[in-house]
């Protein structure tokens, strides 16, 4: 049995199977990316926060664009070389194509890496701060290293674990921290399991919790069984009663209950939760996403209740890269408040001398810029200036501005190292001049904090999702093309036309990947 038209085209359709399939596949891919691009438009138009325009470094993106376009050309050359039966030329061109894919992913990696190493915080008054965090000397992790100063500290007195839900790694972490704090975590009250009594004071361990869990699940299953049988019995009895004849279930239901006395002997003790006392009360720290903190009582996501006073848990910036008031302005305009007043009323301006200085400097710079634009472009027929500073220029003080301020030059005239175009400020170089403000933010003022991950806002969410998916396509395409390059020799010798057909199909896919990037680059980097 042989499938026809594997690489010879069918006369009436003019195409071989793989060519049809790849076009269909690409149509499907268009719909997939179409879904994402539509979502981008939808999210951007519906954004109720200032969409981060031109937030990404343009240079690596631009280089990547040309790298991919170039690779699309070389993949065609590789195909042509096969058609001309020039194996060496094919190897060269295909090799370049795959090298381009590697360069693309390398630059992408640098870009991603930077995002994971910058902190962002949104305050409850919508001020947005970006920068790098201090280490928290009180939050020492398992490797003995201090954790970044963005954790919640609780002076734990009592812990109540959910027997069903407790998360093992978290229990282990609590035990580790308690030991480090020279505290004991011990069972609050005596607990009797089947055939075993656990005295108060038994030390917390995962094994202990698992034993309690096992016992609880067993009791729960037994009790459910007993209660189900009892309830069934009640219904049978009720239906047999003459007074209930012809009545519907919902009419009888209120009078049907399980008699606790009848089943008391068969019921086993359930332990849905179990409490431990921490002596002496000791400081425990948690990542802020894992805990819902309260003044006296906090709760972990796995339903562990922690009784104890919430400690001072500031977000401490070692240095700020940017202060962004655009969201403050947006909110102020919604409420009809003067944006400048709103900014000057923020906690940041009131509490940080450095931030206030930077803001004043930026205000002066904006005024200068406004005058320059007016001088250069003049006014329109309504006597309004033709060009004015952008919102970003007005209300965002970025790291380049801090550099300009320290260097004593105008906004936009600062000297930037080439590496900084890719990676952001070079602190080793800049720090001695103290160009970046330091800051401690009380926890209650923090609305959201984290790295520049999908969680930061929907822009970064769609940026990561789309570029990651595109990256997967680049890797997938490179693997396929690499397979032809490194494993294609045998096929080239036996059936070069078939290999050429495969490279053509692979090349079509490669062009599609390139095309997607040509859309991604402007919408994510330039607009």
């Amino acid at each position, binding site marked *: *049995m*042989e*499938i*026809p*038209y*594997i*690489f010879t085209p069918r006369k*009436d*359709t003019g*195409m*071989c*199977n*793989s060519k*049809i*399939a*790849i076009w*269909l*596949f690409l*149509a*499907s891919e268009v*719909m*997939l990316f179409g*879904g994402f691009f*539509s*979502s981008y438009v*939808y*999210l951007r138009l519906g954004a*109720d*926060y200032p969409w981060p325009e031109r937030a990404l470094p343009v240079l690596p993106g631009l280089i990547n664009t040309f790298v991919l376009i170039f690779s699309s050309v070389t993949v065609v050359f590789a195909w042509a070389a096969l058609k001309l039966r020039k194996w060496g030329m094919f190897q060269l061109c295909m090799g370049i194509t795959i090298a381009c894919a590697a360069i693309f992913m390398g630059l992408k990696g640098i870009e991603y890496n930077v995002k994971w190493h910058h902190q962002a915080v949104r305050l409850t008054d919508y001020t947005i701060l970006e920068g790098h965090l201090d280490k928290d000397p009180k939050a020492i992790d398992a490797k003995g290293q201090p954790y970044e100063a963005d954790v919640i500290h609780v002076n734990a007195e009592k812990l109540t674990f959910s027997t*069903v839900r407790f998360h093992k790694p*978290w229990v282990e972490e609590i035990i580790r921290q308690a030991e480090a704090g020279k505290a004991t975590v011990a069972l609050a009250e005596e607990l009797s399991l089947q055939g075993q009594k656990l005295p108060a004071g038994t030390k917390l361990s995962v094994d202990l919790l698992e034993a309690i869990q096992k016992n609880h699940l067993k009791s*729960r*299953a037994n*009790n*459910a*069984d007993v*209660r*189900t049988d009892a*309830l*069934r019995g009640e*219904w049978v009895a009720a239906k047999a009663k003459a007074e209930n004849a012809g009545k519907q279930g*919902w009419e009888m*239901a209120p009078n*049907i209950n399980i008699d606790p006395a009848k089943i008391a002997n068969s019921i086993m003790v359930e332990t849905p939760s179990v409490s431990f006392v921490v002596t002496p009360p000791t400081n425990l720290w948690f990542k*802020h*996403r894992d805990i819902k903190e309260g003044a006296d009582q906090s709760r972990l*996501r796995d339903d562990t209740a922690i009784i104890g006073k919430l400690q001072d848990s500031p977000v401490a910036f070692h240095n700020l890269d940017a202060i962004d008031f655009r969201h403050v302005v947006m909110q102020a305009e919604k409420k009809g408040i003067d944006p400048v007043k709103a900014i000057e009323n923020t906690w940041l301006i009131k509490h940080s001398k450095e931030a206030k200085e930077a803001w004043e400097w930026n205000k002066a710079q904006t005024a200068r810029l406004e005058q320059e634009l007016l001088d250069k472009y003049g006014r329109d027929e309504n006597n309004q200036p033709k060009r004015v500073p952008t919102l970003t220029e007005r209300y965002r003080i970025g790291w380049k501005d801090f550099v300009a301020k320290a260097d004593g030059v105008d906004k936009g005239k600062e000297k930037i190292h080439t590496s900084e175009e890719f990676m952001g400020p070079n602190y080793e170089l800049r720090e001695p001049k103290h160009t970046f403000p330091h800051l401690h933010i009380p926890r209650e003022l923090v609305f*959201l904090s984290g790295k520049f991950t*999908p*969680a930061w*806002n*929907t822009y970064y*969410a769609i940026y990561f*999702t789309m570029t990651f998916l595109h990256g997967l396509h680049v890797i997938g395409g490179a*693997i*396929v093309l690499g*397979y032809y390059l490194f494993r294609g020799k045998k096929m080239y010798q036996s059936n070069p036309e078939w290999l050429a057909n495969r490279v053509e*199909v*692979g090349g*079509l896919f490669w062009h599609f990947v390139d095309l997607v990037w040509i859309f991604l680059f402007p919408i994510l980097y330039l607009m």
Partner: protein
Amino acid sequence: MSAHAATADHSHHDDHGHHHEPGFWQKYVFSTDHKVIGIQYGITAMLFLLFGFYLMMVMRWSIAYPHEPLPGWMSWVFTDTWKARWLQDGKVTGDTYNMFGAMHGTIMVFLGVVPLGFGAFGNYVTPLQIGAVDMAFPKLNMMSYWIYLLGGLIMCASFFMESGAAKSGWTNYSPLAGFADGQIVNQWLAGQTQWLLGLVMLITSSLLGSVNFVTTIINLRARGMTWMRMPFFVWAMLVTGFLLLLAFPPLEAAGIMQLVDRVFHSSFFMPSGLFTKSEGLAELSGGGSPLLFQHLFWFLGHPEVYVLLLPAIACVAEIIPANTRRPMWGYKSMVYGVIVLGFLSFIVWAHHMYLTGMGPKISTWFQITTVLISVPSVILLTALMISLWGGSIRFTPAMIWACAFIPMFGIGGLTGLPLAFNLVDLHLHDTYYVIGHFHYVVAPGILFGLFGGVHHWYPKITGRYLSKTLNHLHFWPTLVCMNFLFFPMLIQGMAGFHRRWYNGGDAYLAKAADSANVFGKTVAEYIDLNITMSWAAWIMAAFQLPFIINVFLSLRTGKKVESDNPWNATTLEWATPTPPGHGNFTFDVAAYRGPYEYSQPGADEDYSPQWEKPKTDSPVVAPQPTTAHH
């Protein structure tokens, strides 16, 4: 990756020439033969259908008898620990009901009906009907099946986890679906997340499948099998293939975004300032849009309806001409109808979202397109109905199902019309009326068509007929029960019964005669229908046993077929040996005429198969594929 798969696929054909007998695993399990894959799809899909049916029976108990413990004959499948976790004193809880409801819908649609119609029938019949040796990409075909199975198992495995399976409805709307199972620390082990993983796999599977189908139909047609000589079944598969190919990816995009929402805490579908009872003010950036998810979901969701329907209507379209012994009425209109249907199905999606407040202009647009799409649907159904007119009908088992399909699907379709109008829909949205409507389409409609298909092609697959007696024992009670199950839903729906009440409306009852609760009085009037419907469902379950027995028993004891063409049908699948071997045809097959040439004047018999050369005195010129227009 798929580009790699699409092209690398050819490699295994290198070994043709030296035929070696494949072993058991290669022949029956990891087979690349479209017929074996079709049967694998069929069996798997039917098992999933059975599972979905079972979930529904438990739900129906909760609706009819919310205060009574689940009876032993339904609850024995659960372990004690599972029962203790998910049942309250043996009664179905709201959470459990939600979980079963979400999974019932998901399983029936994504794991049951689509794989049965498209995966099983499509795979088995399409290459045979166009005279191809196999699918264009047999290995892709195999991968498609295994990815589907894996996706289905991942979804269902979550029933046994701490979180339970997905509970946010089969539509999985955010923000509910973004939060559900939020207490599970390792999100990869949460039912709601696994639902999304399973979904992404199912979409991948259907992508591989649809690329394969469309390529096969375009390029592997036999000599003379021009476009207008293709049986309607093949046309339906072609359109279905395009629907899957183009409509599913946006849902994949939505699924990926929801996955990112769940695992990386992004806010694609989470609005600003979201506050929940359990979480308080959500620790999320916000700024996303729940409506975006609905748009992306229904962009698939509506074409999906036709993905469900077309294979069933395709089966019926094969059964009816073969059993009326006359050509299909309006073959061309049906072909054009199904193409138009395919196009229109892409622009009606927001009629599922009238209640979201999209604004009157957008609602009107979708109202118009929705009404428009009823035109091709009616063309299909009318052509099938008129095909019966003047035919000499043989009531074979397949024909009985096909005949029941027409009025049942008709009820389903006609009850949909009021929902198309947004003013009426405001009242009926999310009521049992909607449930009644689409279940009439899917259960007695689509499933009847597919049951007919099983009876029609079983003799080709196995060489034996299914038992007529057992079929009667299956068909008639099922027909009656279906109507007792779904018609009362229309009534309850118009009375305002909400589709997601886990206790059947019990909580809304006016308990006292002089109550001011007016709606409660309406509920009291119609709540007893719950019991009728539930019993209809359970009785229907019992009467599926004859079918299951029939399928297995007839493998051994069924009457053997007299020839390779037991129904004296005209399409190419009947030109193969019974059952067809690897490679399908034993002669150089070609199509010499249209697909449904029954009772042609001048012919010796009342059917003229496509593969039979026309009787002519002049030398026969084999038709050339170049005559095809496309």
